[in-house]
């Protein structure tokens, strides 16, 4: 892998940038691999990367039916944080945040992690109590988080309407300073380039159409480019996890919904932190290009089509304008949707399955991007050792029969 740096940029400038190599190869699939990862999104690519890097397993194929990072990796609002309520979640997302903190250097690809702080607003006594509970728990878990008074909120976000006359006045907030945003596409591309450099075959435009089994064991996958064999198959296909599981005769406790997001036209930066309000149903940040990036709620029906409806977007924009009245004349530039797989407890599944050698990593709901490196890291561990890492042991499929749920409904930025 040719390293990226200001020096390589300068050197290539002399040759009019005509000598840059491919960021990753586009190989033909081999007949067999040690591990197949189905799904070339951030989580799948991270899994392949950590399989090679941490476990020395580089005879790996990542199969992607479309283009790398074209699913939710490229459709989210790029928020990263680890301020989760339950210990299990907090530790998993914190692992991920820590990996993010060194990721640009690790991958030699600038993912532009911007730890500008994530602010959660409280609008009622109930919100304040919940926020306090979360901050206390995080502090004892060793994760940074603090409560902000109304005055501190006002100083931090001058354009936020903190008037007591508001319908749901802001009463206070919590902040995780290490939280922030990153460039989502760069995360996928960076993992792809680094995994490729370690020998992983990334195969785009290769759709899995069946999961090959011999008795209770997985033996490979059938694809639009022929059968590919492997003793271990890891599936990381947000939006279609239940479809893929059905190919192996498994039924997952997952509902799939469209989730929309939108950006405004670029404006000069006025919002320097990520702001979330579950009471008013909005979350928003401003990108380094100047666009306001906003996440809407889910459309309530089930769907696999990456389309949403206008009223859902309008509702979110209304909430943003309620919090930031100066944005009324700023204009929405682009809106889109992805499909999110939601578990009953709004926590993911990172697990072995009843089919030997078949692993699933899914159900990240509305918040998978922030988990990308951590998810890949524990999934790689799970696949390599055929047993979960302690960090993802609580996220096994069995929890839906034992009842040991990790209910993070309250953790979503917008009440979904």
């Amino acid at each position, binding site marked *: 892998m040719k390293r990226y740096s200001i020096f390589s940029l300068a050197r290539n400038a002399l040759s009019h940038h005509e000598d840059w190599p491919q960021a990753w190869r586009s190989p033909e699939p081999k007949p067999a691999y040690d591990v197949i990862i189905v799904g070339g999104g951030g989580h799948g690519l991270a899994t392949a990367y950590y399989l090679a890097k941490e476990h020395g397993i580089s005879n790996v194929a990542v199969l992607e039916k479309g283009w790398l990072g074209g699913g939710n990796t490229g459709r989210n609002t790029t928020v990263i944080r680890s301020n989760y309520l339950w210990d299990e979640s907090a530790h998993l997302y914190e692992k991920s945040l820590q990996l993010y903190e060194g990721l*640009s250097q690790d991958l030699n690809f600038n993912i532009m992690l911007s730890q500008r702080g994530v602010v959660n607003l409280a609008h009622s006594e109930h919100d304040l109590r919940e926020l306090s509970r979360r901050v206390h728990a995080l502090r004892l878990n060793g994760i940074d988080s603090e409560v902000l008074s109304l005055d501190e909120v006002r100083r931090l976000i001058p354009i936020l309407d903190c008037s007591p006359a508001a319908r749901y006045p802001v009463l206070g907030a919590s902040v995780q300073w290490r939280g922030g945003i990153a460039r989502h596409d760069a995360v996928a591309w960076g993992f792809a380039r680094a995994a490729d450099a370690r020998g992983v075959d990334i195969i785009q435009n290769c759709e899995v159409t069946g999961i090959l089994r011999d008795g209770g064991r997985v033996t490979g996958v059938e694809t639009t480019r022929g059968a590919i064999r492997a003793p271990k198959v890891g599936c990381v296909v947000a939006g279609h996890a239940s479809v893929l599981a059905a190919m192996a005769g498994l039924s997952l406790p997952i509902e799939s919904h469209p989730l929309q997001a939108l950006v405004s036209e670029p404006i000069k930066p006025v919002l320097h932190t990520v702001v979330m309000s579950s009471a008013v149903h909005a979350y928003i940040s401003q990108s380094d290009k100047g666009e306001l990036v906003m996440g809407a709620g889910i459309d309530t029906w089930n769907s696999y089509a990456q389309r949403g409806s206008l009223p859902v977007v309008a509702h979110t924009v209304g909430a943003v304008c309620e919090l930031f009245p*100066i944005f009324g004349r700023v204009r929405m530039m682009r809106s889109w949707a992805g499909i999110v797989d939601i578990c009953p407890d709004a926590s993911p599944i990172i697990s072995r399955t009843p089919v030997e050698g078949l692993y699933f990593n899914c159900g990240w709901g509305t918040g998978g991007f922030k988990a990308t490196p951590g998810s890949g890291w524990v999934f790689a561990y799970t696949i390599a050792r055929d047993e979960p890492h302690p960090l993802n042991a609580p996220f096994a499929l069995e929890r839906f029969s034992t009842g040991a749920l990790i209910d993070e409904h309250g953790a979503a930025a917008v009440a979904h």
Partner: protein
Amino acid sequence: MTAPFDLRRPEGGRIDRARAMRFVFDGAGYSGYAGDTLASALLANGVRLVARSFKYHRPRGIATAGAEEPNALVQLRGNARSEPNIRATQVELYDGLVAASQNRWPSLELDLGALNSVFAKLLPAGFYYKTFMWPPGFWHFYERLVRRMAGMGRAADASDPDRYDHRWAHCDVLVVGAGPSGLAAALAAGRAGARVILCDEQAEPGGSLLGSGATLDGAPAMQWAGAVLAELGALPDVTVLPRTTAFGYYDHNALGLVERVADHAAEPLPGQPRQRLWLVRARQVVLATGAIERPLVFRDNDRPGVMLADAARTYLGRYAVACGRRAVLFTNNDHAYDAALALHAGGVDLAAIVDLRAEPGGLRVDAARARGLRVIAGRAVTATHGRSSVTGVDIARLQEGSDLAVLDRESIACDLVLNSGGWTPSVHLFSQSGGRLRYDEATGAFLPGRAVQAVRAAGSCNGAVALKDCLKQGAAAGAAAAGDCGFAAAPPALPAAEPEPESAPMRLLWVVPSDAPVGHKGKHFVDLQNDVTAADLRLAAREGYRSVEHLKRYTTTGMGTDQGKTSNLAALAILAEATGREIPAVGTTTFRPPYTPVAMGALTGRTVGALLDPARWTPIHRWHVRAGAVFENVGQWQRARYYPQAGEDMHRALARELHAARNAVGIFDASTLGKIDVKGPDAARFLDLVYTNSWSKLGIGRCRYGFMLREDGYVFDDGVTTRLADDHFLVSTTTGNAAPVLSWLEDLLQMEWTELKVRLTSVTEEYAVVTLSGPFARRVLTELTADIDLEPKAFPFMSLSHGTVAGIAARVFRVSFTGELSYEVQVKASYGLALWNACMEAGEKYGITPYGTEAMHVLRAEKGYVIVGQETDGTVTPYDLGMGWIVNDNKPDFIGKRGLRRADLQRPDRKQLVGLRLEAGERRKLPEGAHLVADRDAVPPMPMLGHVTSSYWSVALDAPIALAMIKGGRARMGETVYAPLPDRVAAATVVEPCFWDPEGKRLHG
């Protein structure tokens, strides 16, 4: 150029020369006319430099005449009405308009940001992914610099003073676009009797006819358009919406439209919304959205004065503005000759027509030659000159098989470079509708293919070129759409268009060579707004960003505010070439709404401020306000939290209220609790299924407390339910959960147990409820009722009596959430205030004291009564709350029964409800939410036992108390647990979660 030449031509155009409009751009005053756009008025005043580009801060001018404008973005208006990134080409000029250029410092002429151009070689597409990584963690530092360059215009500095409306509409046929095709379609559908909505983004319908100078039946085509509009205006079921952009096409033929009601004035008239958002659900849609001319990608094709050929024709024909004095046309097709000839006829000196084709032929070319114009075939513009305005071009002969054009070089002086690369149909909405696109080799364009929704495309957005074809397609689509809605429709008779000469084939050359390889000298811009060049696109392809979506994201092509209307096709064509694929194999990026940006205020409508969410008030609300209550939001309700008297803070007011409720009598407005009337022969069976306990045997007139669980076994809601009759119950819910509970119950009845005969009615707002609580509650009530026997034997705890209270028909429930003797008096809502007043009057001698939600919380916590959502969080079972007695396991089934049996819900070390007492003399409450640990000296990350759910100062105990959920709590009675707080570690003893009258003597009294 010898004779003086006024850019504003003396005649022609659709401007009103009698109405001059003054306006200001970048502080300088100018004048234009009614009917001008800001762009046409600037051009008429000779203003060429209007903007700087995003990345390199290159000088930019007006390149187009419409929604596709990539360059001419301005900051419009000022102060609270200031708007960023407005396309000057779409701003109707009004008197007093103020606009300014943006993204430049210190001025448009001298912009230091242009220093970026010096380093351009270091800043190829995606450069930021490759650098700013050293030293580790320094991105924050670099990012600060990047953010200084970010954005274009500025958000306003104050709240938007304008109002926006929403409108929902249905129609038979929605016609998008009022050019010739759209007008013909609307006419066909309207005449057939269909309900038609015709919308167009411009102030004046007519589309291309407005500026083309075309004729129909030998008369100016706009006469025909005027007649059509007059006829449509007379049809009762036809709505014509000018200044209205259909920006999004959603499922089920729902389209979002934004109507700019008042943007053509400095501010809206009193009472007028600025904009109106329409959500139109149409049975059939006709898209007549036109086409956008495609620029050629040649070196330094971005200088002010480089303009689309048809835009220049529009400026001349519609606004009587010559965009320059001496022009060169650079084209790959015949059609642009029309524009050149029009400009020539309008007095513009046409220095040359440079045609990429080796042997252009046909009537248009002949006409140009016949007028003595110089047609230079087989050559290309290889460079442009000038700084803030173009001053000339270099041309050279194209060589077969070479990437360079160096032969027969010539320089031509000019101040206007018209260019045309053909036309790109506007298929945005068609694609958004889910329709498939097909690639047309001859025109190098994607056209509508198979439709998925009830939609047709007509006219130039459908590939039609000649006016007569546009009219014909429009009329046919309108008639067919009306026909599909059940109307007998026939295409109307159409006027005759001038015969148009056959077009010779165009020459598709996606990147025009120059005297150096692309990227070595100058810049071939593809996306003008985001400064993406052909070299950038080739770099991306070289690096493996071969998917068109990767290309877009890596280079940012097409991601500007124009969404790549003039650049996307060229970008994907260049990608196709670079990767050796055909254009259809590369495909387009997804067309995403909105077509043009939509103000967030318009999307919001009126749902801000007080209308964000309705505030619900109880019938007694006014009394609380007069009493000076402090309110809190509980769900949508505003509830009195406490009633401070003069000089009291919350703590003291609370102490007074608590004292009264425990020692005299308190009065509380409990009207907000959800009330659901459950009626039907299967009502008791139904409640047996949704509650954990049994209802079949509950006596009439008796009350019972119950839990509803979710299917997973966790507590969902609680409340007291009363049997009013054999087949009739009144269910009460928590305040916040009233609607979710009703929805859940309806869901169960309609989807799961359809055989049950039960009807549910929300009666929350039908009744006001006044709670009297305290040792003197009975005495107060005695004074108010003659027909209810209040003796404990006749009216025991957990029962209901009917009668009259203060002369008002009432249901009186003897229930208690305070631990004191309590009555809840329920009357028709309209009598609520009268009842409250009567109670206050009768209770005066007993020291009756209103108490709010805060005191209510303390009173119930002293008793250990849980609040759903405070002690519970969706992970708590009745057993966890120490209330296993409420679960009747003998029932064959109830919601949550199976969930409760799962192994994890049976663990003995689950978090359980306990009380906490602090050390004697400790006056500081534990913070709610504080987490508890067993080891006083633990350091993070430390194992936690649970958390404090409720914590109050208990007036009755004169000490702080708390409730908590802790692991294995029932087995920890008497143990000490610790709450590590930021400033101290607090110790607490685990006790039973009931601090007051554990035997319940008082409430049974």
